[in-house]
């Protein structure tokens, strides 16, 4: 099984989620992060002094799927999260050695 972590722009979340729904993803976890990358920071102003804010608000999305399904999930995310502008984000894939559904104790693929 694979864990697919995607860091995306906040306003793309809805589209990405809808895309994943279409390909039959049944679970998903998201949280807010701050990202720093090629996208340049912007400057804010406060009481006559400027300061640079380097980090951008991003959404991180984690979805664990069978290895077979990983490719289609990645494609779907890329398609729906891309705006073509710098800062669109990255996808990282890791191997998952075990999954457990807490409610039932089911394991691995049955737990997904």
């Amino acid at each position, binding site marked *: 099984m694979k864990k697919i972590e995607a860091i995306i722009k*906040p*306003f*793309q*979340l*809805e589209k990405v989620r809808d895309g994943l729904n279409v390909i039959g993803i049944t679970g998903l976890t998201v949280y*807010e992060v701050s990202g720093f990358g090629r996208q340049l920071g*912007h*400057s*804010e*102003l*406060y009481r006559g002094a400027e300061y640079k804010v380097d980090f951008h*608000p991003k959404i991180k999305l984690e979805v664990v799927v069978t290895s077979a399904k990983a490719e289609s999930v990645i494609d779907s995310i890329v398609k729906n999260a891309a705006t073509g502008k710098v800062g669109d984000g990255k996808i990282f894939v890791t191997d998952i050695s075990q999954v457990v559904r807490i409610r039932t104790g089911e394991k691995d693929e049955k737990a997904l």
Partner: protein
Amino acid sequence: MEFSPEMKYVLDSIWLLISGFLVMWMAAGFAMVESGLTQSKNTVTILTKNLIVYALAGLAFWLVGYNLMYAKGTDFAGSGLALDGMSNTSHSLMADFFFQVVFVATAASIVSGAVAERMKFWAFVVFSIVLSAVIYPLQGHWSWGGTGLGGVITGFTDFAGSTVVHSVGGWAALAGVLMLGPRAGKYLPGGGVRPIPGSNLPMATLGGFILWLGWFGFNGGSQLAMGSKTDVDAIALVVVNTNMAASAGGVVAMILTQLLYRRVDLSMVINGVLAGLVAITAGPNYSSVAVAVLIGALGGVLVVVAVPLFDKLKIDDPVGALSVHLVGGIWGTLAVGIFNPNVPFFTQLKGVVVIGAFVFFTSLAVWALIRVTMGLRVGEEEEMEGLDMHEFGMEAYPEFRSSSRPH
């Protein structure tokens, strides 16, 4: 035994000042209601608008508006600038001016909420100046200035401004909203409505309380005098009726949202209170308490009906300003024609229509002019990321993880 003229002068002037303090306080109420009922990514913008609109209203009304409204001149407009040639013998001129200033600020504040979350800051600033300096004073010249627009609306009765202040703000706002269009993502392609919840309901509730308190000055001060038993009795009745209409509006909104949606909606209760207040404003001085309760209650009904109705018409009003001030103001003005035997209904209707048409179309023209010159609406991306970042480079709550989330 009647009081001496000087005693009347002193008491009346002080009453205007104290009432004016209360009405000034309403500016804070609008700021809190509007920033509470909108998204946190636009909070700095809406706060600045509210603070600045109060300041500008005062300056504009002093330079131009007060004379236009209250000075002799033609039936259409008063003459002079900067209080030039104005005087008053029954109470202090400056007290009167102050009381009027806080009124025009109220009208201007109403616009701010309806056009929130997508209008350019400076476009709003320019419109507010025109509204305070010209549009508001002109119609005020006809009604409270006493010319009746050369007789066209003579007899029109609006004690403290259901029409002259609240609907006027509402019509100006409606013109702006139509010109501006709804917030991005508010109305779905399929016809659905996507709610955009307010970010800080304690602030909105505080704002509701502030407005409620300020309204005692708004309506009570409109007696313009307290130098006799008759006057204080009138003021006391006005205060009680104002309070009871607000109570009724709020309670009815609570009951209706429970019945319609199976849950009470706090934002609607606040709007219900305000609608009750707007509704009673045209005539808190003639009716019995029971009639005031009825008028306020119907204000509460109207707001609960009007909010989703405006949404159905794709007229996007983030804080309910149109439902409260425009709809509530029309209802309150007409109510005088219904419940006050001395005021013909048709006269009230005529006033509502004439003033409404004037303000709406003038405002439309001004908004249009602003649109073609400096632009009315921020870009799509600006709107999505929030006006605060793009127009102010500042955040309202910089330390708190809030992401006026994707909608």
